[in-house]
């Protein structure tokens, strides 16, 4: 256990050299590297923080925007719904109106057609009945239809009840007009004289009688004295038939059944 002072001094120098060497090659570069890395990490952290803040701000912004969008969407939706409802109502009203119009038009048409049909029918039936009656009367009693009509009219004139007669007479006194016989067909002179005689005998004696032809009477004769009237007319029968047909038509073509 001895101390070699020369070795000691050499070792001191060696140690100091080693301190310098390690400072030069180890401590300084390591410290610098670590500092730089630390700084780098700090920078990155700062950067990350800044980015996070930015991202948060952006998120907030978009959230607000999203809420706003949702709000606007709801508003638009509500408005649109209201508008659609309004339009629906309007369209329904229009459709109803249209339907009512169409129905009215259709009903008018039906009515017109019915009237036309009835009119046609009436004429045809009247003609047919007239023909049939004429033929039947001719065949059965060898009688003329017009003759029979005149006969029937005189019969009616004869069998007039008192009230009707008084009514006709009353109107004749007031006006002092001639009695008018209108018929659907031309009356021959025999018939005319029979009629004039019957009027003179059973209604008003000596009254002037005028004859005229009116086709709308449909095979019949009408006597007009002042405002009183007496007639025998096939149209009356036809009117009954017409009424009957009309009733049948109404019951089969009523809108409820269509």
């Amino acid at each position, binding site marked *: 256990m001895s101390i070699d002072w020369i070795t000691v001094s050499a070792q001191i120098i060696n140690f100091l050299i080693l301190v310098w060497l390690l400072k030069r090659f*180890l401590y300084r570069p390591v410290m610098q590297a670590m500092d730089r890395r630390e700084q780098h990490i700090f920078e990155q952290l700062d950067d990350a923080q800044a980015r996070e803040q930015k991202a948060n701000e952006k998120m907030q912004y978009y959230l607000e925007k999203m809420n706003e969008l949702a709000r606007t969407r709801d508003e638009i939706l509500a408005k649109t719904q209201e508008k659609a409802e309004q339009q629906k109502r309007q369209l329904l009203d229009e459709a109803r109106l249209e339907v009512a119009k169409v129905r009215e038009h259709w009903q008018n048409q039906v009515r017109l057609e019915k009237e036309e049909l009835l009119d046609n029918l009436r004429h045809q039936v009247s003609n047919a009945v007239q023909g049939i009656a004429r033929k039947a009367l001719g065949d059965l009693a060898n009688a003329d239809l017009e003759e029979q009509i005149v006969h029937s009219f005189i019969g009616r004139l004869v069998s007039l009840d008192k009230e009707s007669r008084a009514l006709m007479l009353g109107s004749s006194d007031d006006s002092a007009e001639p009695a008018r016989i209108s018929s659907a067909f031309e009356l021959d002179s025999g018939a005319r004289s029979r009629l004039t005689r019957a009027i003179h005998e059973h209604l008003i004696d000596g009254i002037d009688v005028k004859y005229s032809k009116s086709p709308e009477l449909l095979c019949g004769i009408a006597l007009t004295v002042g405002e009183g009237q007496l007639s025998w007319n096939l149209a009356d029968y036809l009117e009954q038939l017409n009424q009957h047909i009309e009733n049948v038509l109404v019951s089969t073509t009523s809108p409820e059944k269509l």
Partner: protein
Amino acid sequence: MTISPDDIVFWRWGLFSLNATIVFTWIVMILLTLISWLVMRRLSTGTKISRWQNLLEVLVSGIRDQIREVGHQKPDKYLPFIGTLFLFIAVANILNMIPGYMAPTGSLSTTTALAICVFAAVPLYGIAYEGPFNYLRHYIKPTILMLPFNIIGEISRTIALAVRLYGNIMSGTVIVAILLSLTPYFFPVVMQLLGLLTGMIQAYIFAILAMVYIAAATSAHTESTYKKY
């Protein structure tokens, strides 16, 4: 039996003799410098670093943390001195397991040299920190009567530092040598392992004590100033 590497002389020139202590010290120095240079040559400042760089960074930052803990001061100023003490003693002791190698720390000359360095560093750091007048005033505190005792304490702790390291390392070598002659196979291996442990512990103790002495010289009023860091 050769106890001290000082006794192995390779070359002599006048009073100077190139003995094993100096040669092995050079080897340790070259090894440390070479490793540092090789690793630091490809230094990375990014987050991806090589294993060797990572090892050196852990080592350096560990030493810094220890200095900070012991000295309660900013470690950068003391790092070269304390760090080199630790690294030199540690590497010199670890290499002891290589056959034919003799740790320079097993020589009292080396440990004395290191202790003298600490002995010189303590007042130097103290004066650098507080100025010469303030520093020297510590020797006459609390009274001037304490001056001789303070000086004796300073010297004795330096000697203790030197002898502790020398004794531990030398004894390890001696114990291995003795056991080799008694039980040649198993025990020397265990003792070598133990030697590695004591070698590391001694390096740690030497460096820490050096730091404690320096801190004592500079920390008369550092408690308040340290809080700045």
